[in-house]
Every structure is written in C-alpha cells, then in structure tokens.
C-alpha cells in the first residue's frame, strides 16, 4: 500500500448553519482510501459519519456550510473545485448510495430513466444507448428480468431491489470511489447480507475504492479492510480491521464491541451498555470528548484533548491511555471471525 491513496481526507472540518446557530459537525477528520480498498467508518448516530460522507461530494447547500481542511481526490482538492468541476466528479468519479432506498429514488420516474440520467450527463449517451446500459446495470446488480424492470417505477419493486437500483445508479459511470452511507440499515437482515455481498463482489470486479459508513460492526467485520471509528465529529481510532477487532485501544471502540448482542452468548450474560448518551454537538466537552462517558477518565482526560497518535503499524488512537480498558476476549467471543 505504498501507492498514493485514491482519496485522502486531511483535517476536514465541517460547520453547518442550523436553526439555532452554527454547529461543527465534523472536527478535524483525517483518513484515506486506496483504490480497491474498503474503508469502514463506524459510529453512533450524530457522530458525523454521514456529514463526512456528504462533505466529500459537497452535497450540502453552499450557503449553510463551511469546509476547511482538504479532500484530496487523486491529488486534487475537491473543496477547491468550481461548482461545474464538482458536478463532473459527482456520479462520475465518485458516487454515493444512501441509507433509505424508499425515499432516495424519484417516485415518478422509471428506474431506467434514473439510472440513465448520469450516463447521459457524464458519458453523453443517447436515450437508447443509456437505456440499454441501464438494463445491463440492472442485470449486473442481480435484478431478475431487467428488460421489464427498467420501465417500472420505484414503488413497484421491493426495498432490496430498490437498493440494488441505487447501486446500479452509483455504478453507472464506473466510478473509482463509491461511498455507501448505511446502505443496509433500512433493509431486512437477509437482504442486508445480499446487498453487502453484491457490493463486495462489484468492488472486486471493478477495483473501485469503497467507503462503507455504518453503525454496524458486523458489517465492518464482513467487508472492510480498514476501519475508522468516529465519536462526536472526530476519528477516535483507526486501524486495519483485524487489528481493531483483536487489539482495540480506545475505550469507546471497546464499548461499542461489547454492546453487540450475541446469539451464542450465555443467556444471562449482561449486555454491555456505554454509560450516558452522546452529548450534543453544541456542547462538546472540553478535553477528551469521550471523557464524560468513560469510566477510566481522569483529570487530564477532562481538561486536555488527546491527539490522534499513530503507531508504526498504522494503528491510530485518540486517547491518553490507549488500551486501558480490558478487552476480554471480545473479538473471539463475537464469533465474527468464525
């Protein structure tokens, strides 16, 4: 992995204007993705993972967002591009899949037209060519009888199918990077597995980079090579997937893992719960952001913010006392690695 990364996010800071004032939703996030690699971004609701994803494509309205830092895509900073240049990146070089396939498709357009749209836009295909391409993409994403489906409307197909259509839209222009924002959260468990498998399969075939945003550590274990754990707008830990599961360092990461219910666990084993709730972004704690919920926090944690320290093996942790929390045999117990 000595090659230059496909996407490099450096110290990204995103401020959003809201009803009650400006909120710094993402504060100094740094990570990178190589071509052909899958990076997982994990965290609870409100930790800024979706904001990070949408900031890469600059999907927010210009008037209420301020970015700082860099989003380097193949060396160019996306944050510096003009609107028109950005439009030629979106859906073409980098594409995105959203969480809720029910509401993310236009209800009054046929799915064929929606897939064809970016092909016409970026590839200059004619209506007929684009339609043929749409059928192929539907076939590729495993939708049966695509010739008929292409003329149907979103309400006529199931949720899993719709997410496949979303994937087809995202793949249309053979992007080099695909961002998937909780692509399976709104789906049934059996469908979830199929969709993940599809994404993994397509990635292997096309060699694109994937950023998988999820709150589900199971998903991460299944398909990611590296993982960044986010908490309250910051990356608190980043490591290769095995490294993270076997040697988690940050108390928050450990807490996350311990809160997974286990099918094969003892019935009376108490499910671990991280104490307290995620504080509001408006009231970011001084010092370590996790300190108020961390049972190992001391004076230093409450007053001084820890930097993101990276060790030689590429494992990065934002904690004054990495590894302080007992891991038990979490990863083994999880049974994720078989």
């Amino acid at each position, binding site marked *: 992995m000595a090659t230059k990364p496909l996407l490099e996010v450096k110290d990204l800071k995103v401020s959003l204007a809201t009803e009650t004032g400006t909120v710094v939703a993402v504060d100094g996030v740094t990570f990178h993705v190589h071509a052909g690699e899958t990076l997982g971004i994990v965290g609870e609701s409100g930790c800024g993972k979706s904001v990070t994803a*949408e900031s890469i*494509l600059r*999907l927010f309205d210009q008037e209420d967002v301020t970015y700082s830092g860099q989003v380097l895509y193949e060396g160019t900073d996306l944050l510096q591009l003009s609107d028109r240049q950005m*439009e*030629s*990146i*979106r*859906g*073409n070089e980098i*594409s*995105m899949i*959203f969480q*809720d396939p029910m*509401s*993310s*498709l*236009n*209800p*009054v*357009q046929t799915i064929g037209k*929606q897939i064809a*749209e*970016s092909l016409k*836009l*970026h590839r200059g295909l004619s209506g007929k060519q684009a339609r043929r391409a749409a059928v192929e993409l539907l076939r590729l994403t495993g939708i049966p009888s695509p010739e008929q489906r292409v003329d149907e*409307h979103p*309400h*006529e197909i199931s949720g899993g199918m719709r997410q496949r259509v*979303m994937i087809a*839209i995202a793949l249309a222009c053979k992007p080099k990077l695909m961002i998937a924002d909780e692509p399976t959260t709104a789906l049934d468990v059996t469908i979830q597995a199929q969709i993940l498998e599809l994404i993994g399969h397509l990635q292997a075939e096309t060699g694109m980079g994937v950023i998988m945003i999820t709150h589900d550590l199971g998903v991460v274990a299944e398909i990611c090579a590296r993982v960044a754990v986010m908490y309250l707008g910051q990356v608190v830990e980043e490591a290769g997937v095995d490294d993270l599961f076997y040697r988690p360092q940050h108390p928050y990461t450990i807490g996350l893992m311990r809160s997974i219910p286990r099918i094969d666990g003892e019935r009376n084993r108490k499910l671990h719960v991280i104490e307290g709730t995620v504080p509001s972004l408006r009231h970011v704690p001084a010092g370590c952001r996790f300190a108020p919920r961390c049972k190992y926090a001391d004076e230093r944690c409450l007053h001084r913010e820890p930097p993101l320290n990276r060790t030689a093996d590429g494992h990065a942790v934002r904690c004054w006392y990495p590894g302080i929390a007992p891991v038990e045999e979490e990863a083994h117990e999880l049974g994720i690695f078989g």
Partner: protein
Amino acid sequence: MGGYVVRRLLSLVPVLLVVAIVVFSIIHLTPGDPAAILLGEEANKAEIDDMKSKMGLDKPIYEQFGIWIWGVLSGNLGQSIFLHKPVTEAFFERLGPTLSLTVIAQAIGVALALLLGITAAKRRGTAIDQSVMSFSMLGISIPSFLLGSLLVMLFGVKLRCLPVAGYQPLSAGLWPHLKYLILPGIVLGVIQAALIARMTRSSILDVLSENFMKTAKAKGVKEKTIIYTHALRVSFIPILTVIGESFGGLVTGAAVIETLFNIPGVGQLIVNSISRRDYSVIQGSVLLVTVAYVFINLIVDLLYGLVDPRIRLSKK
C-alpha cells in the same frame, strides 16, 4: 384505469342528486308565493293562479320535482319568463364570453403562478421570495371587483389603450375579441395566480427537502436542472389540485367581473336574473355551471394518474 373511471363516475351520482335537490328547492325557499312575487303587487288572484299552474307550482312538491328532474335529464331546463325563450338557449347564448374569459384568465393565472412559485422556491428566503409571497398574500385578500375597479380607473382615465367595458365575439376577429377580455382576464388571472403561486412554492420546497433530491445531486445533476427535471413533476399533484379547485373561484369570479366589465356572459345572466326574479334561469344556469365544475374536478382527479404513477397503481 377504465374501471376506475366508471367507479368515479358512479360516485358522482349522489353528488349530482344533492346538487339537483338544492337547485330545485331554490324556488321553494322563497318566502311567500313565487308566482305572486314574480307578477308584482298589482296582480289579482286569477292571474296568480294562472301563473302558478304555468310554473307547475300547483302540483304536490314530489311531483314537481319529478317533472323538473325529468325535464333536466331530457335537456329541458324550463322557460325563462323574462326572456321568453328556453333556459338552455339563453344559457348557451351567453356561454361563449364566459368560456373565453375563463380560459384567458386561467392561462394568465397558471403561467404567472408557475413563474412566481418556482422563482420563489428557487430563491427561498431572499427578497424575491418575500416579494412573491407578499404579492400572493395581497392577491388572495383583494376582492376581484376592487382590483377590477382600480384597473378600470387606470385604463379608463389615464391609459385609455384598452376598452374597459363591453364585448366582441370571436367572429368579429381575434384582436377585437381579445381586446375586451384582456383587462377582465388580468383581474381574474392575477387573483388565481396568487393562490396557485403559494401552493407551487410550498410544494416545490416540500419536494426539495426529500431524499431523492440528494440522489440527483450526487449523480452530478446541476442544481438548476434538478428543479425542472425532478422537483416540478413530483410537486405537480398539489399544484394540479389547486388549479382544479380554482376553476370554481374562476366561475364565481366571472359573475362579478362580467358585471363590472359589462360582458354578456353566464355570470351576468345569473346576476341579472336575480333582480328579474327569473328563477328558472337562475336554477338552470347554476345547475349547468355546477355540473361543469364537478366534471372539471373529475378530470383533474383523473389527470393525477398521468402525473403520478403511484396513484395509477393504487387505483387499478
């Protein structure tokens, strides 16, 4: 879709029955004897009785209703006592000006409303948005005859480039025809536009906050194109509803505007018939206009299916 149309048509039967009963009972709401009122104070008993039997008022009420409804169904809406001709004839003579006026007004209204509504939605929160919203607020608050009177003042006294009263049929040439309808058309159109523009703006804003707008943006569609290719069609259902309903406002507005601008249309016919106590003309005209309004709304309902495939499906 065919079955749906039939079902919708059937559902109109009770509505039209109630409409017919209401229209029929107009004459019986009159305090006192309609025949006596019609003939004036000098009429003697014999004349009144004669008029009564001529109007069919001497029969029991259910029989009167039976005769009347049978007449309606066979296209006979009775005789105008004042105009000495069948009501249908009097009505259809006057229909042309009203149709022209409503078509022009609705065209002005819808065009203006879409323009204003879309602009306001695109520039939400700006001064332009606020001016559009203020205009629309004024438009729904101003009575049509006040706006009309003000325009008459402006054009009749100051500008003098357009006639402020009268009417020429289409057979007299397109421009002479239009010339007389421009001012009344603008009055009605502006008021229509005020209402439709509000709905256009709010329904586009509703759609803009939906998730699939983000999908479109992530595909690389230009923000300006998104409004026309994605937002407008989805937001068209509520807009269509208002346009359909606004035909009712148009018809009632026409009654006032025709009186103000002295256009010999259906509205003026109805209004003039009030003072003449020409009940059969009032009944017949109100019935015909209402039936037309009911069918316009039915057509709008059926159009939904064309615009929104979700409705098409649920109605199959």
